[in-house]
Structures are given as structure tokens and as C-alpha cells.
């Protein structure tokens, strides 16, 4: 009977230890809205993101070609460059480039949706 009691006692102890609530345990941290509102820098960053959706046009959207190369005054030297698509007939609904395509809509979408998701 003695060993019996030790075993039962041991089980009871273990049950009481393990019965604590672990259901809220997690290992990830999420940067939520409160985190964003804490510093001025983060709020600025949130607004600044709108501008990152614009074409910065230092030759970083069309494989090195600037939008200027799409006009008659400046031909891009490499005929295969994607900026030439504006002028060589490859500009089409399936190759929308940026001016009329989805990328151009991004800043507007972004502003609208940020407003929609953060308003109270």
C-alpha cells in the first residue's frame, strides 16, 4: 500500500502543476497599432510609405531607363530596355507599365485603405 500512496501522491502533484493555463502562451510579437503610435518617427514612416508607392524615377522602375526616355526627345540607348515599351508598340493592356497600370493606383489605394482601417 505504501508504494501505492507514493504513486498516487506523485500523480496528484503533477496534475496540480500542469493544470495551469497555458492557452495564451505565444512566441511571436506583433507590431500593432499601439506600437505604431508610440513614436513620431513611426507615424511619419506610416505616412512616408505613401510616397514609396510613387515612381521615384531615378531610373529604378524601367531597368535603368527614366520616364524621360519614353518621350520623343530622349531615346534610350538600349532598344531592349523596358522603358522603350512605351514607344515601340509593346505597351498594351497585358503590359500596362506603370502610368495607367495598378502601380499608379497604389498611393491612392494606400491612402484610402489606411484611412479606412485606422478610423474609429
Amino acid at each position, binding site marked *: 500500500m505504501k508504494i501505492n500512496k507514493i504513486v*498516487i501522491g506523485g*500523480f496528484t502533484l503533477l496534475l496540480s502543476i500542469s493544470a495551469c493555463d497555458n492557452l495564451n502562451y505565444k512566441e511571436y510579437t*506583433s507590431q500593432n497599432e499601439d506600437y505604431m503610435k508610440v513614436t513620431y518617427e513611426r507615424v511619419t514612416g506610416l505616412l512616408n510609405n505613401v510616397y514609396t508607392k510613387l515612381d521615384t524615377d531615378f531610373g529604378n522602375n524601367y531597368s535603368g531607363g527614366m520616364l524621360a526616355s519614353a518621350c520623343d526627345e530622349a531615346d534610350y540607348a538600349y532598344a531592349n530596355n523596358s522603358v522603350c515599351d512605351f514607344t515601340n508598340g509593346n505597351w498594351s493592356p497585358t503590359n500596362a507599365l506603370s502610368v495607367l497600370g495598378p502601380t499608379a493606383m497604389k498611393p491612392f489605394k494606400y491612402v484610402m485603405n489606411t484611412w479606412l482601417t485606422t478610423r474609429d
Partner: protein
Amino acid sequence: MIPMVLACLSVQVGAQEYNDSLATTGYAKTQSAAERTSSVSIIKNEDFNKRSAKNIGNSLFGQGAGLMTLQGNGQYSNAEPTFYIRGLKTMSKNNPLILVDGIERDIDKITSEEVENVIVLKDAAAVAIYGYKGINGVINIETKRGKYRTKEVNVSYEHGFEWQARKPQFVNSATYATAVNEALANDGMLPRYSQDELNAFNSGTLPYLYPNVNWVDETMGELASTNIYNVSFRGGADKFRYYALGSLINNKGFIGSPNENEGYSTQDQYSKANLRMNLDIDLTNNTKLKLNILGSLMETRSPGAIDTNIDDTSGDLNIWSSMLYVLPSAAFPIKLEDGTWGGNSTWKGTLNPIAMSQGAAYSKQHERSVFADMTLIQNLSSITPGLGASVMISYDNTALFRENHSKTFVYGSDIVTSWENGVPATTTHFSEGKDSDMGSAAKVTTYKKAFNVSGTLYYDKALNEDHHLYSQLKWDYESRKFIGLNTTYYRYNTSLYTHYGYKDKMFADLSISASASNRMAPGSKWAISPTLSLAWVISKEDFMKDNEWINFLKLRASAGVINSDQLPLDSNGNEVYNYFEQTYGGGSTYPLAPNDGLLGSYVLGRLASPSLRHEKAYKYNIGVDASLFNSLDITLDGYYERRSDIWVDSKGKYSSILGFDTPFENAGIVDSWGVDFGANYTKKIGEVKLNTGANFLFAKNKIVEQLEEARLYSNLVTTNDPLKQTYGLQAIGFFKDQADIDNSPKQLFSDVKAGDIKYKDVNKDNVIDSNDKTAIGYSTTAPEIYYSFHLGADWKGLGFDAMFQGTGRYSAVLNTKSLFWPLINNTTISQEYFDNRWTPENQDAKYPRLSSQSNDNNYQTNTLWLADRSFLKLRSVEVYYKLPQCLLQKTKVVRNAKLYVRGIDLLCFDNVKVADPECYGAGYPLTRSVVAGVSIGF
């Protein structure tokens, strides 16, 4: 009552489905098959332990109605099958829950010898008490236990020879050079090899400059060998039972010359030692203690390097996939004249499989595991008759250490720079790499820890002559931790299970389980899953009493809802834990800071999920269990399941005007339905005992809803198709010539030439592009039909047994590099492709023209590469002789002795032919083996 049923059934020797009263299906009290209302199939040790496999998983091919066991890898240390119960049922994870003695555990260390039964739980009623984890079905591995007042010692030894079946055949160097030149010419480029060089390859007189090496044969030996030793002790006294097993498995792989180095071998090796102890102690008449411990040590070695930073072995240099499936026979010589390993700038010496298997030393992995659990069962009849309680606690721990002892070496080659009169005039020497000492990096790369506790209160009572009640309330707690982030799980499960029997004819089971998990979002952690099942034993009714040929007949039906804690999967198949939280992350920069500096930005992350439900299954099952003519057992099940609230990415639901990553929603719905069937027939004719049986599973499914985006053409719609359906283009032959190309719809993938694949314009828009893809063939993940049959006979201890297993409605996409898609990125070409390629003279070819680069037109999923993957394999065949008892009695020591020879996977009937239908990728080919064994009982 129940003993009577068993008595009437016990006449059937080896009857698989009904003599299983000891198999535990998860309840505190074991139920007999007659009173079971759920769909369960039970596989016994004497049925599955015939493959001399390294572990229990690899013993289960074709076993159990409703269970799909699919083979994959041929490397001994990594060969683990994939299991599905009744096929695919969801877009998220389909893996069943695998238990060892009721606790979720890895089964790659469990030997077949230590397993008594494998219990496959299929319908809602059977998996109800497993809470969130049971949604895809449950496989419970039940280990052996001791027996009261007996004593037996069993010793067995098995020795096996394996060989690699269907090794790929690559062309010799002269053919390779011709093929490369032809491919370059097809692509409109200049040849790589001059006529002088072609002559040199043909004559073979300059083996160090123009070699011809059959890398597969030079690297791989003919045979590998396996030794399996088992010693087991089983028995007990009046109040004590034990089962103990010591097991050792040792496999030496296929590396042809592993002993070229002093002090160590570079062979592919696997060895594992298991020590198991299962004890049952009757502390008092009312208190029983169960104790199970398994300790396992595993060591594998492989030539060359392994990454000590990751657990994932896919990044390691694999001799087959990185070298033998890449290197052409013309690449470089094995060794130069001065003994340096061969290698050049196109094919580095690190691709030289012989250098890597002999001169790069070795790497090692150790795995140490302990699985321990203890159960205390207390009869509480003193409070009220029939009451009892049990408590279980378990702790499992596994750690994997990786040691990288590899070294690097110098490699080089001589390259001819000019020719004069058909002989090389000048050469340059290329040399790279350096000789290093053996490495010593070591790290723990995998660590797993699991802690389980459960408590059960049960009440088992015959209320009166007609009514019998069993009820249990079970509480489970689980904590499971793996190495890495977001890999700690806590789950609770409380289940109330009630089993009611009326006159041993009618049975009704009701389960209600409440489950919780830390993986789910706050507010949705708990879910309740109810299940109801009924059974009617018709053979017990009065009107069936006089029936001579129906020994047993039972109808079953079950229905239930099972919830799960499956998480959304991102596009890479990784689980998303914080799906319910709106997060922000860093975005790109814009030059708005002072002095044109870049200013950082923050951006809204994936939108938080609006719905927080659980993936759930509505499972329905009807079944018949029957035993006929005193010799035939049949079980037949039909099932239907609707899986709903499956997590899917909602990007198809919203227009891109949303501007953000779309949230996950509980919107997916998949229906699955099918039939599984098992039969077993045992008959004694004179001195001959015959046993035959079959299993059959037909599993269909259909995606009903997955928030698919609006498609331009109906052939691109994947909703209403099966899960993992293969999609591709429809090949309608090869372009004969330029005129044929001009007269056909334009193919936009690349510039097509004669000999390229011609596709059907499925959407009739007069151009061929990715919009012409459509459903072709079946799934490559799981077959729709899985079946097996076995046949055995025994005459005075001499007997044989053969097991066949097959699949149907199963597809393969033959995109293996070199073998089916040759020459891309300087890979080699198989003899099969070379002999069957398209040339202007061979218009009726099997494969398209050669091209020297990845050809966007030809090398994509289409019906040309699609193959029927269905097969029929002879999984095992055994011939044995059990020494006669009269002879053994004279020894007074030996109780039984069995000698046997087994053939494993000896035959394969299929349509792929050049590769194994289950393993056609660029990996280790599957092996076949012959095993001789002896088993002696004392």
C-alpha cells in the same frame, strides 16, 4: 454475452477483424469488436511484420482497410512513408495523428517487432475523443505487453541484401558530346565539341583529357546489407507482467569503395539500438500500474558534408540528386594522372561523386530518444460498483546532433587548347580547391519534448439483464515543444464518452469533446465536437439464430462534427500564427529626409482575419461487419465528409484595388467520399491452411469553395476539381517543320522550332499561353484507389505468404533532370531520352528535340510528361519452415524455431518503366531486397 461471441468467432484461425478484443481504441476499457460502433481497422503483428523493415511505418504498405501508405525515398536512413487515412480531405494539412500507446510520438524509431497491433481509426466516432488532433484520422501503434504466468524468450536474426532497382542509365561520353552538339545546333548555336574531340571521345585513347566515366557504376556498389537482431523477453507472474525488447539494426549502404581512408569509412550507414520495457504491476487487487519505457539510439553516417545549422536535410549534397543526376560521363576523369581528383570550371570537383564519397571524409548524425509513460488504474468499486479512475503521465524527449567531419580537396583537369593533325598540341592546367583537415563542427539541430497528462473517470455497469452502460470522462493535457520559434503547443481536451448496449444487440455511443489549444486566436481557443454512432448486431436477433452461414453480422452508422486547430498556411506552406492580429511592418524608403536622405517607412501588414472559426469536419460513415461460412470476414464502409471553414487566402475574393495583402478566411469547403473494404478468408483443407485477403480503398474528393479568383477562361477554374489535381497543357504532338509552326496557333512561351511540343488551343483564343492550361490526369500527391491482396498457405509448418499492393488513378509528372529533362544547365542525358528524342528523321518520337537550355515551351507540365503512376508491387513474399514440435520437445530448451527467406518489393508492374513509379525524382532509387532470417523461441 461478449465471451460467447468471441467463442463462436475463435474457430476462425487468423480472422483479422474480430479476434481483436484486446486492441485499445482509446477508451479506458477495451471493447470487443462486436460491440464497437465506430469504423476501425486493426492490423496484427503477424500480418504486417513480414518486410524486415527498419521500423513500423515501413512495414505497413497495403495493410489496413482505409489506410494509404505511400513510399518515397530509397535512402535507408531517410526512408519514411507518407500516410493518409481515406485520401486527401483538405487544403491544409492532411497528415493523420500518429500515436504510440495513445501518445503522439514519432514512429521512425519503433521497430515492427515491438508492436502488437496497429489500429487505424477512421470515422468521427473513432476519433472523437482525440479532440483537435484527430480530424485527419488516427493511427495508434500499440506495443506488446507481458502475459500472466508465462515466460518466453525470443531471439531472431535477419540478414538482408538490397540492390537498387531501376537505376538511371546515362549515355557514354561520345553520345553525350553528339547530343550536346545536336542540341546546340537545334538552338542555332555553334557546336561545343570539335570533330577532333568527338574522335577522341569515340576512340577513348585520351582518358585523362577526353574521359568516359560511368559515374553511377563507379560510385555505387551492387549490394548493400542489413542486419537485424532482436531479443525479447515476455512473461509474468501472478501480479506482474513484463515485455522487454533489445533490438539492433545495422545497414551499410551502396558506396562502392568506402574504405579508401585510414581510420574511418565513408559508407552510407544507419544503425539504431532500441531498448524497450513494458511493465504491468498489480499493486493490489484494485490498483494497477502500467509502465512503458523506450530508449533509442540512432547513428547515421554519410560521405561528405552536412549542414550543422539546419535540421532540413534537403540542402545537403546528395550523391544522387546533386551529382549522379547531373554529371555527364564526359565531364572529367575520376582522377588525373597525378592522382588529383577530377574537376573543372563547368563541373566543379565538388560534383565528383567518387571524390565526394571517398576523399571528403564523412558526417555523422546521432539521435537519442526516450519515450516514457506511466498509467495508474484504480478500481473505485468501494464507492459505487463499476466506478474506476486512471491517471496517465508521459514524457518524451528526442535530440538530434549533427557532426560535420568532412574535408575539402584539390581538384583539377587538363584542358586542350589547340589541336594539330588530330592530336592535342597544347593544354592548360586548371586547379581549384584546397586540401583541408577534417572538420569538427557539431550542433544539436533538432530537439523535441512532449509532456502529456491525462485523467479518466469511468463507470462500467450492467444496469440490469438487458441494459449495459459504460461512460468515461477523460481530461487530457499536452505540452509539446520543438526547437525553433512558434513551435510550443499546449492543448487541453475534455471528452465525455458514453457507450450503451441493449441485449448485446443494439449499441449506441455518444461522445462530446471540448478541446482547447494555444495555437488558435483568443476567443476561439475552445471548440466542442459531438459525435453519435449506432450499431445493430443483426446476427443476434432471433430470426437469424438458425442461420447456418452467417456467423456474425453487424450494421454500423456514425455521424459527427470534429474540430481542429489547423492554422492558415502561407504561400510557402508555413503556418501563420498571428493571423488574427493586425500587424505593421517596415516598408521601403523614399528620399524625404533632410538633405535628400532616405526616410524609412512603415506599412500595414497582411490584414487581420475577420473570421475566427475552426476548420471542421462533418463526418458520416455507414458500415457492415460480417463473418460468414466460419471462414470469411468482411468489413465494408462507405463514408462522406464535408470539411468546412478551411483557412484560405482571400485574395481571390477581393479586387486588387484593396491594395494590401488579403486576410485569411475560414471559407474553404472540400467534400470527400469513398468506400473502403477489407476481407479475410481462412480455411483448413486437410493438412493445408489457406489464408487470403484483400483491402481496397476508393477515395474521391472535390473542392467546393476556395475563394478562387475570377478566371478569364473556364479551363483555368480549379474549384470543383479534386485536391492537388495536376494542371498543364495538352500536348498534341511535335512540330514537323517550319510550315507546321506557321500554320499552327502561335505558342508564346519561347520561339518554337521543329521538334518542339505542339499544344492544343484549349481556350480557343488562337494563341497558346498559360491560359491554355487545364486539368490533366489525377493528383501526384495521393492516389484515388489504393488496394492490396495477400495469399498464404501452410502445410505442416512449411508455408509461404505473398502480399501485393497497388494504386490506381494516380499521376506522375516526369520532370526529373537529366532523365526526362536533359542537358539543362550542363546536366547529362539518359539513354532513354537519347534513343527516343525527336529528330527530323524520327518524327514519331516519344520526347521532343534536344535543346541545350531550359526550353520554356517544352519543359513545363503538360500531357507529354504526364504519366500514369498506378502500379502493382509485390510488397513481400515469404517462404518459411517452422520446425516440428515433436523434434523441438526433445531439446527441452527450444520451444519453437522458424527459418525463413523473404523477398521485399521484388516485382513492380507499372507504366513508368525507366524509373520507379513511387520514386522517379533525382534521388536515391528504391531498393529491393532478399532477407534470410531465423527466429527461435525458448
